[in-house]
């Protein structure tokens, strides 16, 4: 079981006189748990998610983000004792991904000319390679030299990596059926020309393929109609139920929480998590609004 532990996280925009956005975030998410992170615009929710993934636009000024791993996190892979706790802030974004961190983007990038199949298989294999290297310090020089395409760029390199083309196609097909996604997506370019809803579905699909320990989903519910919301919710529940992924779901709305029931709800205000509770906190919030939280928090202070 993996645990993501955020302690006293302070961060600002990484430029001269960059605005201080996070002022001491504390949060802990374990595999298999579903957390909802709520809060008004500008409270620092999205920033928190980007910093977890390693976005270069922010500078952490204090605090830490740790990832604790246990033996069952990567299937049968035995994790060496000295590789069980990681300071994410010292790692590159792709290294964090390799250790099981996933960020579902609010606005996923559109990459022209790169098919879904090629992208996802490359990412999956890169993740597996990088993970081996981080855990066991293996640097596979030979494979590096083999970089390049030996098949059509549409398919990617046939021999590159652990998961071959045929095996991957099967995996992808399975996951797409689960999410009720059309097979034709496989040959489309990554997010290019996707509708808002398709992009969000695609984020969940990617998480299903990459099997992260912890998935941070930034407003995955925004811009979804009710049918798509149900598909996406089904996908998120499956991440937890079938892969044991821990979910940190950032949302403005109670609506998605009806489909993806959180074990824990946290409320952020002004760069801090100010209140945590169970699912009922979300419905209280829906009834009373953020002013209620603000009053409670600042009166108590």
């Amino acid at each position, binding site marked *: 079981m993996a645990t993501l532990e955020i302690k006293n996280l302070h961060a600002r925009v990484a430029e001269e006189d960059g605005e201080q956005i996070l002022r001491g975030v504390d949060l802990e998410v374990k595999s298999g748990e579903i957390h909802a992170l709520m809060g008004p615009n500008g409270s620092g929710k999205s920033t928190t998610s980007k910093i977890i993934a390693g976005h270069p636009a922010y500078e952490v000024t204090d605090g830490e983000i740790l990832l604790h791993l246990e033996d069952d996190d990567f299937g049968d892979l035995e994790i060496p004792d000295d590789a069980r706790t990681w300071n994410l802030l010292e790692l590159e974004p792709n290294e964090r991904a390799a250790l099981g961190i996933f960020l579902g983007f609010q606005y996923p990038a559109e990459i022209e000319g*790169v098919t879904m199949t090629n992208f996802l298989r490359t990412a999956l294999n*890169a*993740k597996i390679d990088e993970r081996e290297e981080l855990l066991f310090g293996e640097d596979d020089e030979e494979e590096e030299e083999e970089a390049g395409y030996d098949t*059509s760029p549409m*398919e990617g390199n046939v021999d590159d990596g652990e998961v071959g083309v045929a095996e991957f196609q099967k995996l992808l097909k399975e996951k797409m059926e689960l999410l009720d996604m059309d097979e034709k997506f496989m040959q489309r370019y990554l997010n290019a020309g996707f509708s808002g809803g398709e992009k969000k579905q695609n984020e969940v699909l990617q998480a299903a393929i990459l099997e992260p320990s912890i998935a941070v989903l930034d407003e995955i519910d925004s811009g979804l109609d009710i049918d798509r919301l149900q598909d996406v919710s089904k996908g998120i529940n499956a991440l937890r139920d079938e892969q044991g992924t821990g979910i940190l779901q950032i949302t403005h709305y109670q609506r998605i929480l009806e489909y993806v029931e959180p074990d824990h709800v946290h409320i952020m205000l002004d760069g801090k998590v100010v209140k945590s509770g169970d699912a009922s906190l979300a419905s209280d919030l829906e009834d009373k609004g953020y002013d209620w939280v603000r009053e409670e928090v600042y009166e108590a202070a």
Partner: protein
Amino acid sequence: MSSDQDHLKETDTEARFEFKKEQKAAFVAEKGLTEETIRVISEDKDEPEWMLERRLRALKQYQKMPMPTDWPGQPDLSKVNVDEIVPYIRPDVEVRGGVDDWRDLPDDIKDTFDKLGIPEAEKNALSGVGAQYESEVVYQNMQERWEEKGVVFMNMDQAVQEHEDIVKEYFMTKCVPPSDNKFAALHGAIWSGGSFVYVPEDVTVEMPVQAYFRMNSEGMGQFEHTLIVAEKGSEVHYIEGCSAPKYSAFNLHSGGVEVFVGEDAHVQYSTVQNWSKNTYNLNTKRAIVEKGGRMEWISGSMGSKATMLYPASILKGRGASDNHITIAFAGEGQNIDTGAKVYHNAPETKSTIESKSISKDGGRTNYRGLVHIANGAKNSSTAVECDALMFDNESTSDTMPYMEINESTVDVAHEATVGKIGDEDIFYLQSRGLDDDDAKQMIVSGFIEPITEELPIEYAVELNRLVELEMEGSLG
């Protein structure tokens, strides 16, 4: 996807282009360009009198014409001193005009082409291969079944002897006259080697024919001439590849290409250029397309210090069409100035031009194009799209798409984009597990995908490899 491509994995692309061979030649001309040099070359080739006259006429034109210096953003040609280059080197091979078995070549030359993977490619995917080393074609072969159908694929020098009538009619007369530009004139004076392709009426050459041009000696010039005549209803795909090892002195490549596309014929001309970064690559390529014919130019320009290349199609007959796909990659110290020219001289002619360029580490790419639609070319259409991708703020890219439209009933579309590689795009891919280099590489290979998609598989592979190699310098 198949074992056919296994051989491609086994060769290290970088080593394949970078190696040098000791220079061994049977005949080396004096440096520089004089009437005497040209007479010597012509005599060494045992050419008919008319060819010598054409050469000498071209020389006079060359001497009169000024260097192009006033094009906005053009590569600096001030270092191109023709008097410093060796214009003609005949490699030391026994059979003039090229052998038809690789084993008959001297070991060092055979080894060169082995490293470049040409004999392997020939076995697997080509109808015929020509290979030029320095100034002469050293290997030439075509599958017998094409020969039986009357297809000719031979080196240009030999064609002057064996197909004199055709060559005399088409060679630098109506398509690329030496008066076209200074380097066409230079080419006309000292051309050597290259290919002659003749496809008879209604013959479709199913697999591509390929010519490979290799400069091995320091400070030399290579001036091969390619003449393709595709008769009515015929079809052929010609591929050329180029490379040279890097030396401190500059090399000059100034090829000439003339293509005659007959009625309803279809010619595709693909180039992957990977000259060393000390090569000036200044070519003139042009096609004349008859009624209902189709010309396709596909070019990948990766190497060279400076390239100036604007393949042109003259759409002469009703319903003739053109398709240009170009990709340029400029790294540190490179100025890749490429583009396309299309003349719509008849009604219902159609052209599409797609250009993609990538610049990094202070490199410069230009798209310089001209679409001319003549008065009377009714119901013609053209679509031009140019996209440029820059890696950093030091790199430059300019787009100069000139249009001259003298007819009103035409359809003209033009789009251009210039952008820096997106940090958010890179972060997105990184967050999925790709490292910084791989993320950039994936974005670039996606950017050029519309082009690689058009190429035969071996060339798509090669092009992607070359792009990866070019990028490795700046990344990591």
